[in-house]
């Protein structure tokens, strides 16, 4: 079977699900961030796949590039926040810093 759109989409779907799994189960905030990166990557695979097979053409590439830019900004800010949290609590366990609950 020739490699077509569906192959890529399934890879991206599984990657997405794994990313969600990482986000849900991990306690460490940085691990949550990693799960997020997986999700973003899966979205990017979709963009590029559609740009080849779905006629999205070069615009798909552009969307992917913007996603990458976004990811960079997000990672920077998220890590800064995590650092700040760490300085406040000496801990980045999302269970224990769930003070927003109250």
């Amino acid at each position, binding site marked *: 079977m020739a490699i077509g759109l569906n192959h890529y989409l399934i890879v991206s779907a599984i990657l997405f699900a794994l990313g*969600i799994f990482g*986000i*849900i*189960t*991990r306690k460490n905030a940085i691990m*949550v961030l990693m799960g997020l990166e997986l999700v973003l990557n899966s979205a990017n695979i979709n963009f590029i796949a559609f740009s080849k097979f779905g006629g999205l053409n070069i615009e798909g590439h552009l969307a992917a590039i913007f996603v990458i830019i976004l990811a960079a900004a997000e990672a920077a800010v998220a890590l800064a926040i995590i650092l700040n949290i760490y300085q406040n609590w000496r801990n980045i366990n*999302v*269970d224990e810093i*769930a*003070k*927003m*609950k*109250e």
Partner: protein
Amino acid sequence: MGHNTLLILATIVLLLPLASFLILVTNRKRLPGRSAGIIGTSFIGIGLILSIIIAAHKMVTFKMLPMIQYKFDWFTVGNIPVKVGIGIDNITGIMLIVVMLISFLVHLFSVEYMRDDVRFSRYFAYLGVFTFSMLGIVIANNFFFMYIFWELVGLSSYLLIGHWYEKDSASNAAKKAFITNRIGDLGFFIGIMILYFSYNSFMFDEIFTKINYGILPFDSGTMLTVAGILIFCGAIGKSAQFPLHVWLPDAMEGPTPVSALIHAATMVAAGVYMTARVFPMFTGWALIFIAYTGAITAFIAATIAITQNDFKRVLAYSTVSQLGYMIMGLGVGAFTNGFFHLVTHAWFKACLFLASGSVIFAMHKAAHHFNDHHTDAQDIRNMGGLRKTMPLTYYTFLMATIAICGVPFTSGFLSKDGILAGTLAYAQLNGHWLIPIIGFSAAGMTAFYMFRLAIVAFHGQPKTEIAGHTKENNWVIVFPLVLLATLSLWFFYSGNPLDPSKGWFHEKVKPQPTAVLGNLQWAFLIPYESKNPSHQKVLQRVYGIEPKDEMDMMDEMPLKPEAMGMPNPHMKPDAKSANQQALTDDEMMVNPHTGKKEMPNDEMMVNPHTGKKEMQNEEMMVNPHTQAMAPNSSTAKVDAHIPQHAEMGKEKAKNDEHKAKGEHGEAGAHHAFNKFEEQSHAAHIPAMIISLLCAGIGMLLSFSIYQFKFADPDKLALKAGPFYRLSFNKWYFDEIYNVTVIGGTMLFSKLLGLFDNKVVDGLVNLSAGITRVTSYFVGHFDNIVVDGLVNLSANVTGFSGNIIRKLQTGRVQSYVAFTITGIIILLYYFW
């Protein structure tokens, strides 16, 4: 050198001061001694050489081309590309030299003048960025760049005026300059936005072309007038026109070389330059606004200058007055002379300021020598007798003073006279006699106060010990003075000391053809080459001016266009000729006179009658269509007709000479349409006589009061009473602004506060009272009935909330999980 080379050179000239700025600003602490000044000066020196090369090339090699420009799309908004670029035409070339030369001299001067300054290299860095921004304005060919650099000029002037920011007065002056300028810039910005909104372009040539083809902003001529006036507002701010002139005298708080730079070449010139640059888009009403603004400024500033005692302040008001002249000149349509005055004024005003700097520097040194820190080194009452101690400064100052007064054989005479002639002509044509009257009286006052300054400061006996012990400064300070004073002589601009129109300047800077449609432009300013049919139609409609003159002339001409194989201009042009028209449009727009030189058969026409070259050319070119059509017609045909044609031309010229105003031979050669040119030529001699008279009276008065002491100035002041006080207090402008603008704002806010306190609060209190009464009754109902219900529901909510609360974990992950679950349920439902 090709066009691109020229443009690249221009870019380099632009970037050199920036480079100087960057180098100095990044190495501020590291540069030893005066190397910062030397670096800055040498950068500007290179730029000066390059700009001379550029200007020479533009005016000699590419004299055919109206404008060399480079455009590119900077970015795209929506699908409209924003075009920007740079352009060089004759005006730009001249301005480049003016800016760079004065900047160079000021740099050089400052190396000595500022040598003990603590922020020496920062000062030079700011000078660099100032020059850079001004150059940006000069070589911009679009509103976008111009606005950017416009603001940069404002910023750099702020930095420089506030150079000695430890002084309260300096930092206040800087703020005042900055804020006052912003007011003008607001208008400028709105004007630009109106134009961009209408034409989707920032390029000068595109906008003017579109205006020329009758496309108006919002389809309304009034809007064009408004846009013109708004854009001129920018010039009001920058060029210190009434009523925003108040900042310029205060700007004296900056170092003196900076004042020279601001007053001569950069900041204030920017406004005039901009007005000249966008001149084609001013409608008649806008022009009259401009003319009156200039005239009022010239008058008020001149009256104030008479009574001031601060050396630099007198010069500052004289600058304001002269700027008023320039603006007035532009406003009345004397385009060339207005711009000419900008250039000549740059030389002698720079000279005056640098000379004042030299004097102040020497005074300071002497004061330092005496350990005297109380005597004001800038007050002319403390000077006197400097002629003996500082001869070179004195003679250069005198030279510049003579020039600014408009004495013959000086550059000032050439340009000022042209402007005054223009105002006279203007008044003759449409009856605004107030403008020339103000102009002449201001000329007289100029002579009076300038000589007052020269006499009080330099002549007589030293009034203080300090003044007696001043010494001439070294060559670094004197050299710029001598150079600038030399440039105030007439022969740099025209062979004939009495008539500038023979000089190269008037050849290179031709009056701008006005692109504005006839119904919005004074008839006499319409370009004589106007071949825009809509122009003529509108003229006819609004002013009732038949295009008869033209037709008559054509009739008189032995060769009708048809006879030369050209289509009738009044027939609807066929596609081909329309095309050509568009092609030649650029040339026509920018410089009609040079445009014709491009005609391939030009030489042939002239050759047989070399002696009468100019006349014939003019004559022949009278027919606007010749220009467009000539390349189309077969050369052989034209050739065949030439001798005959030329003969006729000569004949015609003679006729004109007889029937036209008589005193002017050349006038006949001009197109009948351009009445203004004609009139101003006619007014040249009377203007000269009157202005000389005025200046002479001013000088005489000044000499008799201050030199020969026929009258005591103090007593005169007492006698003049209110007038003296009005002048001495600068017409109470600052006070008026304090009362009106600032006080008005305060009053308004007070009123608002009062309204808020009394009315709004009263209403609120009233409603509160009503509410209180009602609530008393409602309260009981509430407590019993409603609360019962509420408590019930609250209990229910609390109970269920306790259960649901477990879901609210505060962990993002849970929320993600819930979201995903929700999405899955949705998917399941909708799939």
